[in-house]
């Protein structure tokens, strides 16, 4: 085969409709066998059916998509664990796949596999440059399209989508995290490797270069969270605050724990009812179904929280040097963390 022959195969795969708009690696039996050699699971094991169209995500089908995404075989257990996580009902992947909303599943990796596989947790963590981040995230997205049948405009009604629908995978920067990492917080051992899947919007930057008082920094973060256009103001659900290492270090040096940071954000990421009434998603369902009973709808000055409870604000540390953090709104569903148990 010449390079021109390979180009012809890539064009053929474009014509098949199996790609995300970018070239894919041809899924040859040899490549798929190499991928399958990195799991103890049998190829015909069914991990689940991908919504909305219910295509069967067998281990083999996941491997085919992982090859197309450009994954190295050693990434495969991460991809399988991510698929299992997004099929958890708490993620409500069916809703995420079909919604007009912008969110798309983000894969967050914790534990020793981060270093072993070279998954980026530092500078440019949401950007390009690392094969592991790019291809693990892409494999998950190809599965959502090829097995889930999420076709833009047909079943996937996202008004905008975002670039994370090509690939969306990071690692937590555990070395820079002054507190316990996400997976340990969720009951896993530090030596476990895990994936957390969360349907997230694109990252919203939070710029704070000058505050040295923790409350001032956290007020900046809270203000970026509680916006009138946020799904969470009306629907609840989890959202993620990704603290840059410098912001995390400032808070920890002043003696703040992660729980205290979360509590402060829960108290301060709020908007008055009068502002929320102007639109967003405020309506009869907000009173009937979506807001907690303790919110007083009779007073315009009532401060409505972004999160229904502090635990719905999930805190991570990732990224490189620089006084920025990131807010990741979600869709209104929950994140799920699973151990990568096939290594």
């Amino acid at each position, binding site marked *: 085969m010449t390079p021109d022959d390979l180009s012809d*195969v890539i064009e*053929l*795969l474009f*014509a*098949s*409709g*199996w790609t995300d708009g970018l070239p894919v690696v*041809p*899924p*040859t*039996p040899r490549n*798929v066998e190499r991928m399958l050699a990195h799991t103890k699971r049998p190829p015909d094991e069914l991990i689940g*059916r991908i919504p909305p*169209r*219910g*295509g*069967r995500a067998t281990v*083999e*089908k996941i491997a*085919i*998509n992982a090859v*197309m995404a450009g994954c190295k075989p050693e990434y495969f257990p991460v991809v399988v664990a991510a698929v299992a996580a997004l099929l958890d009902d708490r993620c*409500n992947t*069916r*809703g995420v796949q079909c*919604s*007009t909303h912008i969110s798309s599943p983000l894969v967050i990796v914790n534990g020793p596999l981060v270093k072993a596989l070279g998954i980026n947790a530092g500078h440019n963590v949401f950007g390009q440059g690392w094969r592991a981040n790019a291809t693990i995230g892409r494999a998950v997205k*190809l*599965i959502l399209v*090829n*097995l889930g*049948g999420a076709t833009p405009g047909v079943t996937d*009604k996202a008004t905008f989508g975002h670039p994370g629908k090509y690939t969306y995978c990071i690692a937590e920067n555990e070395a820079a995290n002054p507190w316990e990492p996400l997976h340990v917080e969720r009951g896993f051992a530090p030596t476990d490797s895990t994936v957390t899947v969360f349907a997230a919007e694109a990252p919203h930057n939070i710029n704070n270069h000058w505050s040295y008082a923790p409350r001032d920094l956290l007020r900046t973060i809270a203000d970026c969270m509680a916006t009138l256009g946020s799904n969470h103001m009306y629907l609840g659900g989890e959202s993620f605050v990704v603290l840059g290492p410098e912001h995390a270090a400032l808070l920890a040096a002043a003696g703040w724990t992660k729980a205290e940071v979360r509590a402060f954000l829960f108290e301060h990421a709020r908007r008055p009812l009068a502002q929320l009434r102007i639109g967003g*998603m405020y*309506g*009869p*369902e907000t009173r009937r*179904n979506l807001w907690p009973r303790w919110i007083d709808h009779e007073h315009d000055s009532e401060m409505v929280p972004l999160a229904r409870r502090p635990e719905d604000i999930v805190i991570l540390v990732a990224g490189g040097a620089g006084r920025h953090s990131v807010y990741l709104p979600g869709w*209104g*569903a929950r994140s799920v963390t699973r151990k990568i148990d096939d290594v």
Partner: protein
Amino acid sequence: MQEILAHIRQLGLLDPTDHEVFQRRTLAPRLSQLRGKVGAFLDNRKQNADRLLERIAARLIAECGIDRAEHQAKFIYSRVAEPAIIEQLAGRCDFVIIAIGD
């Protein structure tokens, strides 16, 4: 498309999709006419879905002669309807109209 897929198979490349399931899940057959039929109107709880469905039902009764309209509402738009609702509507109705996107 069939030619392209056949060519891909000839090259020995593996299929990342699940055609078998996709082919089985097709649209329900369309009714040839509505007169005398019973319509299900399923409200997904988005804003104004109920009003839209009431107006559609009224017009279908007045202009297309459907026999009657059965209205139901899901608990919330982000989840599929409860199985009991789907079963009830499937057992009593000839077609279903669902609203609303946004």
